[in-house]
């Protein structure tokens, strides 16, 4: 069997077997193997890919030809799926208790691999659907309304994509990417082109969680197994991101020719970028106002994806490379965050900030992991999150796009804001007494977190590792990387190692001063300055609820505008309409039914018969 097919179907096979056997121990083994096999193959195929530039395979199936292709681009995305998928499944060993979850989690992983490796639109669509269904089933188990909201929006997206695909197919008679790109370039009309772009925008926007199509994500990300959410947010949302690259690959040139550019960004790209910018702001602000740990990270995930969209929208090689870099670091730190959330929930059984606190002492390992993730997401040098954000900043601003530049700046601050809220409420302050015997992460979760934490650090200090691969996608030195540690854009430079070294120097200097001082005495959390009042554990003085109340008040006007509510209203309206319509049409009166016959006869007569 072809290796590409093994990569795609190994998770599904593992999942089906795990579900069918459903024996504790074997189930987990099969599941993890299902996620590990593709990763092993991807690593194995790397040298082959490097030599040939592209590995392809195609099969005829069901009267269609399906092609799969491993290119440098798809390899990078597949590796995201591989690493995060593996970490996520390992974590599921701790948190998942039945075969159902293994089946659908791995099914969605298969879908994601399929989406990345497909080289024709039909295969892309089929795996897209498979992925959607798998993830939907994971959500449905926990919440019907969250699941249905996710599914309806996803399906609307998927059907929009399908319509676009059908349009293209009607034009080109083929699904294969090269044929499609050709047909679109030479034969597609202006109106159809705009339509196809709009449909793709909706399709990929939903999956990526682009404003204003993001409303499913907070519910869906939180109402499922949090170990799985690591994959959900880390990998599945990347398929949407990958879709935006696909827009460039398939219809980008033609769009550029047809609709021109705004400044140096293509006009269609500017739409993507602008929506991405709004996504950053909206997602970030809402993240800061959440009271549930899972929702905070769900919104944060949306916000971070916004960066990627901004980068892709700008449309230069540099910005797209920056976007892919951020996709990688987003998968790493966001996957890590959700595993941390999974650990916290697994150990405490609580999800709201109000019930937590002071866990840093009880879960030092998890806290260390959280520290890495926080630094990376907040964009603190030298972490992977900083490098990718830095690239995006430079790529956007160097193209003279000031508004987008302002948006990304705002995003980095709002990242700080919600992360500190998380840090404060969960790890510090007085600990509720019922959390006194909380244990640290179980082994599988710890391993899974470590898998994701290490690249977060490595890819920040040695960005050359990543950039080398990303440059291959474009076949040129988009970002020069003279050494492993250094990036050079011509108008900006970054050196991860130098930053690390000097940070250590700075820390050492501080440490010297610190240790020259008198020794310290450890005091409990109750021994703090309290305007003269003694602090006792009977009153929990840590602010956990409504931490950013002033922000909420400042934004009160904007918070009233809710797209979620709009969609719900539309849904309710459709249901009511359906009911009214049914009552009138199928009213149970045989006389009116007979009238329908007469009516149709009349129409037939008017038709010119």
């Amino acid at each position, binding site marked *: 069997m072809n290796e590409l097919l093994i990569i795609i179907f190994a998770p599904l096979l593992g999942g089906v077997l795990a579900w069918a056997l459903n024996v504790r121990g074997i189930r987990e083994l099969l599941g993890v193997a299902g996620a590990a096999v593709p990763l092993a193959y991807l690593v194995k195929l790397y040298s082959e890919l490097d030599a040939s530039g592209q590995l392809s395979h195609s099969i005829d*199936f*069901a*009267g269609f030809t399906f092609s799969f292709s491993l290119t440098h681009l798809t390899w990078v995305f597949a590796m995201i799926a591989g690493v995060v998928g593996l970490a996520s499944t390992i974590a599921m060993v701790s948190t998942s208790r039945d075969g159902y979850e293994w089946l659908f989690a791995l099914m969605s992983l298969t879908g994601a691999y399929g989406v990345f490796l497909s080289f024709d639109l*039909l295969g892309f*669509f*089929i*795996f897209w*659907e*498979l992925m959607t*269904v798998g993830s*939907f089933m994971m959500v*449905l*188990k926990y919440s*019907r309304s969250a*699941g*249905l909201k996710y*599914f*309806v929006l996803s*399906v*609307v997206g998927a*059907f929009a994509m*399908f*319509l676009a695909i*059908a*349009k293209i*197919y*009607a034009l080109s008679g083929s699904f294969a990417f090269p044929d499609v790109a050709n047909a679109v370039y030479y034969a597609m009309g202006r109106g159809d082109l705009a339509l196809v772009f709009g449909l793709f925008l909706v399709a990929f926007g939903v999956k990526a969680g682009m404003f204003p199509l993001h409303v499913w994500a907070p519910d869906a990300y939180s109402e499922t197994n949090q170990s799985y959410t690591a994959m959900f947010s880390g990998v599945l949302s990347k398929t949407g991101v990958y879709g935006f690259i696909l827009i460039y690959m398939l219809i980008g040139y033609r769009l550029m020719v047809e609709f021109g550019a705004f400044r140096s960004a293509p006009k269609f790209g500017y739409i993507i970028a602008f929506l991405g910018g709004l996504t950053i702001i909206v997602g970030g602000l809402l993240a800061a106002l959440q009271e549930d740990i899972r929702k905070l990270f769900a919104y944060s995930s949306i916000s971070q994806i916004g960066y990627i969209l901004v980068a892709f929208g700008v449309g230069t090689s540099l910005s797209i490379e920056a976007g892919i870099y951020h996709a990688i670091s987003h998968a790493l730190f966001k996957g890590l965050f959700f595993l941390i959330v999974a650990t916290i929930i697994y150990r405490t059984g609580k999800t709201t900030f109000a019930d937590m606190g002071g866990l840093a002492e009880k879960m030092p390992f998890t806290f260390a992991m959280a520290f890495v993730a926080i630094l990376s997401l907040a964009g603190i040098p030298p972490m992977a999150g900083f490098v990718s954000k830095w690239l995006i900043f430079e790529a956007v601003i160097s193209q003279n796009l000031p508004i987008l530049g302002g948006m990304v700046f705002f995003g980095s601050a709002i990242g700080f804001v919600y992360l500190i809220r998380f840090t404060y409420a969960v790890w510090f302050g007085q600990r509720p007494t019922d959390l006194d015997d909380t244990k640290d992460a179980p082994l599988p979760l710890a391993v899974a977190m470590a898998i994701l934490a290490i690249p977060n650090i490595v890819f920040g200090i040695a960005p050359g590792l990543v950039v080398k691969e990303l440059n291959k996608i474009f076949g040129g030195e988009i970002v020069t990387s003279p050494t492993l540690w250094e990036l050079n854009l011509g108008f900006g430079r970054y050196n991860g190692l130098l930053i690390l070294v000097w940070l250590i120097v700075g820390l050492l200097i501080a440490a010297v001063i610190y240790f020259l001082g008198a020794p310290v005495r450890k005091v409990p959390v109750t021994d703090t300055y309290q305007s003269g009042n003694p602090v006792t554990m009977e009153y929990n003085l840590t602010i956990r609820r409504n931490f950013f109340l002033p922000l909420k008040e400042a934004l009160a006007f904007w918070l009233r505008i809710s797209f979620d509510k709009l969609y719900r209203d539309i849904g309710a309206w*459709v*249901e009511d*309409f*359906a*009911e009214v*319509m*049914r009552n009138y*049409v*199928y009213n*149970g009166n*045989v006389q*009116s*039914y*007979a009238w*329908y*016959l007469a*009516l*149709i*006869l009349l*129409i*037939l007569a008017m*038709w*010119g*018969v």
Partner: protein
Amino acid sequence: MNGQYASLLIALPLISAFFVPLIKELGRKAVMGYLVMITALQTAIAGWVANEVYSTGKPIIVIAGGWKPPVGINLYIGHFAALFVLIIAVISFFMAIFSFRAVNVEPVDKYAMLFLLLMLGATGMIATGDIFNLFVFMEITAISAYALTAYNKTGEAAEASMKYIVLGGIGSSFFLIGVALIYGATGTLNMAHLAQLAGAIDPTVAQVGLALIIFGLAVEAELFPLNAWAPDAYQAAPHPITVMFSAFVVKAGLYAIGRLLYLFQGAEGWSGLLRLLVILATLTVIVAELSALRQKDAKRMIAYSSIGQVGMIAFALALGTQAGVSAGVFHMVNHAIVKALLFLTVGYVGVALGGTAIENFQGLGKRMPLTALTITIGSLATVGIPLFNIFWSKIRILLAGVEAGYSWSVALILGASVVEAVYYFRLVHTMWFVEGGGRIRENFAIGVIAIFLAALIIVIGVYPNDVWTIVQKAGQDLFNVANYIKNVPLMGVGA
């Protein structure tokens, strides 16, 4: 073996239906056993016929009494008919088994007779090569269907049957007028001969005649707004009969529409009629899916869904392209399997738990895991999830739709599919994630049938290649009229 044995497909159910009164004295079990036996036999014959047709690649033409068409009446069992006669037989066989459990109302001998006649009618509609004969078989089907709808002897059943009779009656009379018109213009009732002459008919007559025929058939084929009888009838009829309605009775009507439509493709005004049909089909899908959204009764919900799916088939058939017809036939096959499974299992739940209201499905995953699993598979398949059979036919229909230039229609159908997904997943959620009552023992035979159908759904879904080849041939049979004419040995009359 001689191809003429294929006439047994008609003869067997007809004759055995007349024998039912003889064995009625032996009791309910015997009657039901007899039913199973006959349908099994029918299945065997249909299997043999299908094998014959597909292995030789030639249709079997049965000529009655040695009179060559167009003077004599002939049966035309081509790729399409062979396939669907087999489906009819298999489904009937399964339903005969299901009837053991599901039908307890007396008089079962009448039930058995009507059951056989229903099967006969549908088989005849699909197999016949004569347009008047088609009318006759349609009447047989319809009348047995009216009776079976009312079989449960409840007030609702009677009312549903009444509606069905009124609408069906009007429909078939218009059909008959259309046939008469066409006959007056061409002097022939043989379908192959009609096709030959189609181009030469006076355009007005052809248009009016064809329009009336299609209009008449649309009642049977459940096109909006002529399908108002369907939800009531589906719900009121005994569970096995509902399966048969959905799986093949409506398909026979659809087939007739498709067959006659393409026979007359030479006639003027043909494309206008197609457009009208596309509009009606699209409306059928939308209205049906929306109506299903808030149903409190699972059986009725699935009935609406079935109408929606049928609308999609009609849409495919009305596209007027080879791709559309093949996709439509594919969908017919898939829909027959899936809806058979769904109505069977939902009906079984109705029998076991005393009703098909959605509340009865709460916690079904724990109470009747096998049934719940198969319902889930059926639901997922209907929604069009990849790896299930309907996915393939659905995308083929929609692709063909866009190719034929009906993007707006496809968009609307896709919108309706979203609605469909919502109510099916609500059902799935109710079954698996809502707490329900205690465990119930499941019937073995019905379980086997359900698993067989579910397995079929998945097998076709995972490996559609073979079925696709078969339905392509069947689709060609329908679309390629020149071939159809060539295959029928017409006496040189009028041509």
